[in-house]
């Protein structure tokens, strides 16, 4: 049942002549059957337009959409075997929950008895079977969300498209639905294409993520790949907080530690350096990997620093550091390690060699970055 989807050179331009702009700009993408695939990016990056193109609400300007190997680029939405869960749910207000879920089945020619059976099953799948006779307006946001999911799943689509389905819910509900949604996807085995601007949602649920920027794909990879080996500064910055440092490559070694110069300080990195010695570049390190050590602690990759600010986050403590070389760096440390830290305390910041990564420069074209990251 689960079918793959393939986008080749997909482009969507809005407007005419000089005022036209490409919302989706020559995207190539291959999603295999049964995959939970996320399109991640800020608003206006083209992720929703990509989803609408796959659903058939927009006609592509160029390129092709292959659904299970068949070209559906110019097939109207009601003839595509894909279903959508809308951000606003779009439940029909004049129909009961049952009739909302049964809506699509009326066009499939199944018998009344089978309709009842399948609607019941779909509602049970999202634990909404006891609400069948309610109107959508009598349900909470989370319940409407579940009904919208049941309405789309009841038709056994080849691909389920989800447009920020958790966007309108509160944080607590979002967390529990996230786990449920992933479990549901594994149970039904349908290909999910999930659009979100929330990096945490994308990281926790997806098998793979495409990070989008200005109508193009910046990087495709597993959550670990895009989080730990971001292709560029944009991806690094979008996926959670990242410290970006301006460095110069001093010495480059394949398969061993390379040396970077941060001002006068030499730093080692055990990751592959995508730049020639002497070239300037950006190095990235995640705040949770930066360690705050006592002033005077010796060893490699330790930089003297002053504490600018200590922010209590609840589960952890965020420490704003000013390095001796002038850069600002954020560290997130466990609360028990932050006990003795206060503004003005001199410390040493430890930037572990395996956590420090040099990003590919802007000189290289973006698609090459994405491919390199997928291959790694």
């Amino acid at each position, binding site marked *: 049942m689960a079918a793959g989807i393939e986008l080749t050179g997909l482009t969507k331009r809005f407007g005419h002549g000089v005022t036209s702009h490409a919302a989706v700009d020559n995207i190539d993408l291959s999603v295999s059957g049964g995959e939970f695939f996320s399109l991640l990016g800020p608003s206006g990056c083209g992720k929703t337009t990509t989803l609408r193109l796959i659903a058939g609400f927009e006609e592509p300007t160029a390129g092709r959409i292959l659904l299970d190997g068949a070209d559906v680029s110019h097939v109207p939405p*009601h003839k595509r075997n894909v*279903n*959508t869960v809308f951000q606003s749910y779009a439940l029909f207000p004049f129909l009961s929950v049952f009739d909302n879920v049964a809506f*699509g089945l009326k066009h499939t020619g199944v018998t009344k008895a089978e309709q009842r059976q399948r609607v019941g099953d779909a509602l049970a799948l999202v634990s909404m079977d006891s609400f069948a006779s309610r109107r959508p307006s009598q349900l909470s946001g989370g319940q409407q969300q579940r009904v919208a999911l049941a309405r789309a799943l009841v038709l056994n689509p080849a691909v389920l498209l989800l447009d920020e389905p958790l966007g309108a819910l509160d944080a607590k509900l979002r967390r529990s639905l996230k786990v449920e949604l992933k479990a549901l996807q594994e149970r039904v085995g349908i290909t999910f294409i999930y659009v979100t601007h929330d990096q945490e949602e994308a990281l926790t649920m997806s098998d793979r993520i495409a990070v989008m920027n200005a109508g193009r794909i910046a990087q495709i990879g597993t959550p670990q790949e895009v989080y730990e080996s971001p292709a560029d500064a944009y991806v690094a910055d979008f996926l959670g907080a990242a410290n970006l440092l301006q460095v110069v490559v001093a010495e480059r070694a394949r398969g061993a530690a390379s040396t970077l110069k941060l001002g006068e300080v030499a730093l080692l990195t055990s990751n592959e350096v995508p730049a020639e010695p002497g070239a300037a570049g950006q190095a990235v390190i995640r705040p949770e990997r930066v360690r705050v050590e006592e002033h005077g602690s010796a060893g490699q990759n330790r930089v003297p620093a002053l504490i600018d600010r200590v922010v209590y986050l609840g589960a952890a403590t965020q420490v704003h550091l000013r390095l001796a070389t002038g850069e600002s760096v954020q560290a997130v440390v466990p609360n028990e390690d932050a006990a003795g830290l206060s503004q003005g305390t001199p410390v040493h910041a430890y930037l572990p060699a395996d956590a420090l990564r040099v990003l590919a420069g802007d000189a290289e074209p973006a698609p090459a970055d994405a491919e390199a990251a997928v291959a790694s």
Partner: protein
Amino acid sequence: MTATNTASTQATPQAPVQGARRPFWRNPWRHPWFLEGFTWLYLIWSLVPIVIAVLFSFNNGRSQSSWQGFSWRWYFTDHTNSVLHNPQLHAAVIQTFRLSVLVTIIAVPLGVAFALGINRWRGPIPMTFNFVMILSYVVPELIFGVSMFILFTTLFSTVHLGTLAEVLGLVTWNVSWPAIVVQARLVTMGRQYEEAAADLGANQFQVMRRVMVPLLAPAIFASAVLVFSGVIDDFVIVDLLSSSAGNTPMSVIIYSTQHGGNGGPALNALGSIMLAMSLIIVILGYVGYRLLTRGERGSGLAALTAISGES
């Protein structure tokens, strides 16, 4: 320093006394007696003449000003002059009802089609159409009526003055109600329901029948009420486009008879019937709109504004 000052002010028992000594017109929390009184005054001023006019339709005498006891004679008991037995008045009631029904049946589907067309179609042409729709609220009805009169007497003289001309004129004048009311609903709805229905396998015809018509029903109903009551009220267009006693509606009869000095309680009876027709339609409209939009938030106020737009 400041802190101690505020503390001492709060502590002193004089503080509330100072508030009470303030003249009442300086008190921002006072009851709005003036506005309330003015509202009552307005209500009395506008309703009393209507109540008196209705009252004298039940007068047991020929006077429209001195009360001579209650009777139904001007409605049906008088064998020559009651609304029921005077052929002219009798025909007027029927003509008004006929025009309202015909114009509603024609103008509402036409206006809904306009609304859908203007809503779908992008570019400068639908913008112009939209402007024309709003224009009919701006053009004086008299100018419109006179141009229709000239149209039917000189250009399209195959359409004689009478019921057909009246219907054509009223449909043209009233079609903007459904066009604008339905369009407003379409704009607030967005395209999400249509897209959801198409996504679930409905073709364009099924989307229209299964989703759009039920969603637009309140707006269609509200505009039907507006058109119906608008035709009952209409005077200028029907006055210009009617040709004989058989196709002259209530409003024109009341105006010309009263103005000609031949008024009597029978006219009050005719006016009361007209008023009752309008009221019944508006009440039906309000209740119906509430029923059609139950489950939607804020529909009470929406119903009020939608239905009371005209009457």
